């Protein structure tokens, strides 16, 4: 009896010690920390993910757990290693994260964003493409593009994104090196002069919502130019990238005509950013089943999700699979949940949960909820 108690005690102790890592900087994470959780500072979290970036269900968890933690997992480490060894004079390398539903693609991306922020990359992050193309609230602001014939603008979404961009790169945008290469004329009275800081362009887009889409277009062009000239290095992260290639969006013009994704001006801007005709940058995108409607969710592999068009657009890219939890990751996650009071009860519960959730991270979280 005594030895058993002792054994249980030691197991508890080792669990409490090993599920958390004190290494808060993602650049320092290594294979030793796989499966462990690290905490993101609250203010930084607000800055990086204040306008989206973490899934909604995860935001709920962070509120209950009173902290934002991420698990260090192999896919993120792999990409970080690749970035460290990249020659930035060569054209950008594109990484595609793929995996089953709920396996943690978005959270892997969050981890990478934290890394990019720390390495002082200029972050161009789209939290969820479907938010623009597939989610249609009652009053979706849409307009025909004044500058480009046959294109549709989403001014409100574009302005919201510009705000997101501005908050994510608060410190970097103050850098006086980031200047505009040419003059942009928006209307008779409004124009942005050559050599004005990049921040001015962004703020104009936020203030004058009408031009937000054109501002994004200009911004993308400028960012590419600046990175080519080694003024800054750029980290592009787009979640749910395959929505750009699904044949239809749920948008409708005022004349009830359905809109294809390539007719939306935002799509064209971000597709030029994912081409590899520029240098000094990193592109990470995800191919997600949840980003497209149910009739196109048969497989989670990028070739199926991106269609031929998207595949050829990204080719050559580095595919990185985000898989289910390994044995070790599952155990640390369970002990983390136990620490946060999310999981309670006898230890046989873990075996059952492992079986029923099939080690899928999201399923596991869901199944723990009523326990």
């Amino acid at each position: 009896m005594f030895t058993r108690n002792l054994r249980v005690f030691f197991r508890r102790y080792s669990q409490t010690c090993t599920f958390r890592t004190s290494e808060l900087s993602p650049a320092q994470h290594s294979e030793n920390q796989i499966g462990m959780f690290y905490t993101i500072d609250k203010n930084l979290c607000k800055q990086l993910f204040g306008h989206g970036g973490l899934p909604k269900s995860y935001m709920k968890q962070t509120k209950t757990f009173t902290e934002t933690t991420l698990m260090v997992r192999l896919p993120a480490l792999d990409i970080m290693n690749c970035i460290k060894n990249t020659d930035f004079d060569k054209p950008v390398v594109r990484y595609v994260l793929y995996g089953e539903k709920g396996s943690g693609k978005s959270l892997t991306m969050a981890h990478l964003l934290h890394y990019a922020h720390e390495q002082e990359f200029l972050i161009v992050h789209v939290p969820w493409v479907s938010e623009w193309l597939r989610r249609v609230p009652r009053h979706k602001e849409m307009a025909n593009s004044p500058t480009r014939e046959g294109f549709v603008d989403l001014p409100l979404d574009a302005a919201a994104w510009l705000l997101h961009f501005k908050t994510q790169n608060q410190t970097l945008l103050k850098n006086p090196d980031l200047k505009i290469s040419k003059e942009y004329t928006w209307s008779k009275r409004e124009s942005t002069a050559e050599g004005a800081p990049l921040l001015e362009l962004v703020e104009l887009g936020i203030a004058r919502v009408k031009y937000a889409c054109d501002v994004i277009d200009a911004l993308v062009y400028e960012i590419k130019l600046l990175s080519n000239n080694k003024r800054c290095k750029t980290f592009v992260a787009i979640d749910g990238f395959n929505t750009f290639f699904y044949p239809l969006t749920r948008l409708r013009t005022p004349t009830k005509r359905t809109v294809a994704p390539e007719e939306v001006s935002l799509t064209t801007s971000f597709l030029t950013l994912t081409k590899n005709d520029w240098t000094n940058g990193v592109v990470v995108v995800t191919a997600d089943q949840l980003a497209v409607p149910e009739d196109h969710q048969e497989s989670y592999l990028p070739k199926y999700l991106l269609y031929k068009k998207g595949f050829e657009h990204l080719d050559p890219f580095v595919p990185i699979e985000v898989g289910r939890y390994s044995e070790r990751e599952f155990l640390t996650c369970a002990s983390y949940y136990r620490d946060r009071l999310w999981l309670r009860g006898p230890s046989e519960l873990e075996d059952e949960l492992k079986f029923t959730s099939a080690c899928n991270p999201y399923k596991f979280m869901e199944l723990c909820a009523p326990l």
Partner: protein
Amino acid sequence: MNNIRIALREVIPNRLRTTSRNQWPNLTQTRFYARATSFPDYFQNPIFRKEDQAKLIENNELSKLAAIPVKPPAACETSSVYYDPLVNKVINHVMKMGNKQLARSLVEKAFENIKRKQIERYHLASTPEEKAKILLNPKDVLHRAVENCKPLLQLLPIKRGGITYQVPGPITEKRSLFLAVKWLLDASNDKERTVHFPEQFAWELLDAANNTGKVVKRKQDLHRQCEANRAYAHYRWQ
């Protein structure tokens, strides 16, 4: 379809059937009955919990049961660590038109809500004594809530001399459990249209576990009524 299945069952041997029907073996129990079955009286209820089985073995009662026919356990009656008969009972009370999946998801959502609220309270509490008082396990909350809602007496309508009297009397354990669960559900269904059931149910359970709220008041009202009608108590036997 069922008839064909039964015909098949007789023709095809057992092993062949499982492979031909489906690519994956069935994980849940499936039974092929032509129609809703009622087992004869001498069929025993199944003993599906490991603890109960261990108790049987300990008391040497297993050999008695070995020769008696036993009903198959229902799909929800499992030997999982998570299984709780009271929770199952509540789920069955929530269920409408046999849609158990929905009922179960609703109750589990309510549990999740309770858990989130209690954890939040736990983090807000400053002293360890306060923290120890908070019930974190939603199942414990449910058990306590039902315990607090169970009435001890009931009123029976009894007709004497052309007048129906509400006569207080004792209540069986089973009926008091039924009333407690029914009242809890009545209270949570009496809500604004915009509030979801799991949310309201969670609030009711938390209130009842705290010995406050609509349901506990209803129980106390019944007790008060019984107390007021005690003069009629003799009608139970006269």
